[in-house]
């Protein structure tokens, strides 16, 4: 694989109304990067992902994806050029069936084709419940559906906002296993915001620690995620 930058974030600031959350973040993501972003609640992890997707407008700074400026691009266009984003919550249409959810996600095409087939193979819980209303799925099934929906389109970069929050250990490891298969098949870079570090450690090759809207550590030594004293130095009350 030829290494190249897929995402460049430079001096990014953003926030909500009068509250500045991101304070000049700079970050490069290569196509072989699988990054875990960790930090205490409220440090700006989710806001960073939402700002990249232009769901939260940036105040200053630049974001480019494969050399295209995207900080003012509408969210739907950002998705269409190859950034997938899994929202933390409300990431499926609960009133629609699983099949309808997948149809919407696949860009109004039928659930056929090599990509759709592979994605559904990775999520048997989704494939076996196509007629069920999404609102009736369990938490794990719903997250599987949400991830399958995001990956129905080709992505070069996948942003995941706490994908296993609230899931049982078995549902979480099933989801992570499916994600691993999808990464090997479609080879995309990923950025994952998550608190359950043990679960995601095997999936990542780079670790970023945030505090108060800034990046305070950026390392490829992902084993540090499991080092309680190292984590304790950077922020307190980290659930592992």
């Amino acid at each position: 694989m030829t290494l190249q930058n897929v995402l460049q974030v430079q001096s990014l600031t953003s926030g909500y109304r009068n509250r500045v959350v991101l304070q000049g973040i700079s970050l490069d993501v290569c196509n072989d990067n699988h990054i875990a972003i960790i930090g205490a609640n409220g440090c700006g992890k989710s806001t960073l992902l939402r700002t990249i997707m232009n769901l939260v407008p940036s105040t200053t700074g630049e974001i480019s994806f494969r050399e295209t400026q995207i900080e003012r691009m509408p969210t739907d266009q950002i998705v269409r050029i190859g950034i997938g984003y899994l929202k933390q919550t409300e990431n499926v249409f609960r009133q629609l069936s699983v099949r309808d959810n997948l149809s919407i996600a696949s860009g109004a095409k039928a659930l056929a084709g090599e990509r759709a087939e592979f994605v559904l193979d990775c999520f048997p819980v989704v494939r076996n419940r196509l007629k069920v209303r999404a609102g009736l799925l369990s938490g794990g099934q719903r997250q599987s559906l949400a991830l399958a929906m995001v990956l129905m389109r080709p992505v070069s970069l996948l942003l995941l906002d706490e994908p296993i929050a609230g899931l049982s250990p078995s549902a979480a490891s099933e989801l992570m296993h499916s994600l691993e298969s999808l990464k090997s098949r479609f080879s995309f870079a990923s950025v994952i915001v998550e608190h359950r570090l043990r679960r995601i450690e095997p999936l990542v090759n780079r670790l970023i620690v945030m505090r108060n809207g800034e990046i305070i550590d950026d390392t490829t030594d992902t084993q540090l995620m499991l080092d309680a004293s190292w984590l304790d130095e950077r922020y307190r009350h980290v659930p592992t």
Partner: protein
Amino acid sequence: MNLLLQLLANGIVNGAMFALLAIGFGLVYRSLRVFHVAYGACFVLSAFVYYLLVTCGGWPWWLAGLGSIATSAAIGTLMEAGFYWPFYRRRISSEAVLVASLGLAIMLENVMALLFGNEVAAIPRGLSQSVTLGPVRLTMIQIAQFAICTSVASAVFLLLRLPSFKIVLGMGENTELVQTLGHSLPRYRMLVLGLASGIAAVPACLVMTDVGMDVHAGMSYLLIAAVAVLAGGVARAPGWLLGAYLVAVLQSVVIWKFSAKWTGLVAFALLLAILLFRREGLVGLHKRKEEG
């Protein structure tokens, strides 16, 4: 008994027209979460466009109908682009948007009153032929109303089954998700308003052909559409049809038992009963507790 059967037949014809109105209103309400008060004005406007094309333009009825549908769809699209979308972008509350929509409806109604006057406008025609089916007699216009409205409603339902139109149904639930799945929200919002307004033009032209209309009729038709959607259940489109037929048939029963002057009360009574005893509507979704 013969009178009741006749009134029920009339009710079913009216129900087909109310159903189409309800589909248009329901599409906007479900997918945009906008209580589109100006929908009534749009309905009346399309009827008057049809009236102008037929009486002044000398267009044949079918071409005038298509012209009215196209004009109404264009007006609906413009309403979204120039009126509702700016409110949405600024995150204005739905209550404020409702009041603004009411203001728009009043403004349109006054402009139409200036242009067309306050009298009932009707397309001059001779006596309509009728068909007798046992104790029931239906005019050809009534048969056309039922056939056209039912066909258009069926076509819309088929359209809504297309994957690209599933987005329209998903929009009301989660607009952000629509965008994060790569779909353009403004485009789909315009599509919904355009489609709904185009749909409203169909019963508008048919009512204009049958009994004529005055420029102030919009609010009563809007209420029927709104009650049909709320009574049937906002979440499920087939419920809107059920609600529409229920309003129309109940109106017929009220005419039979009491008087035609009480028909206006039917919609309100039905709405009250549904809101008190079955909040989610007749065929609303039963949600899990955690769905809220």
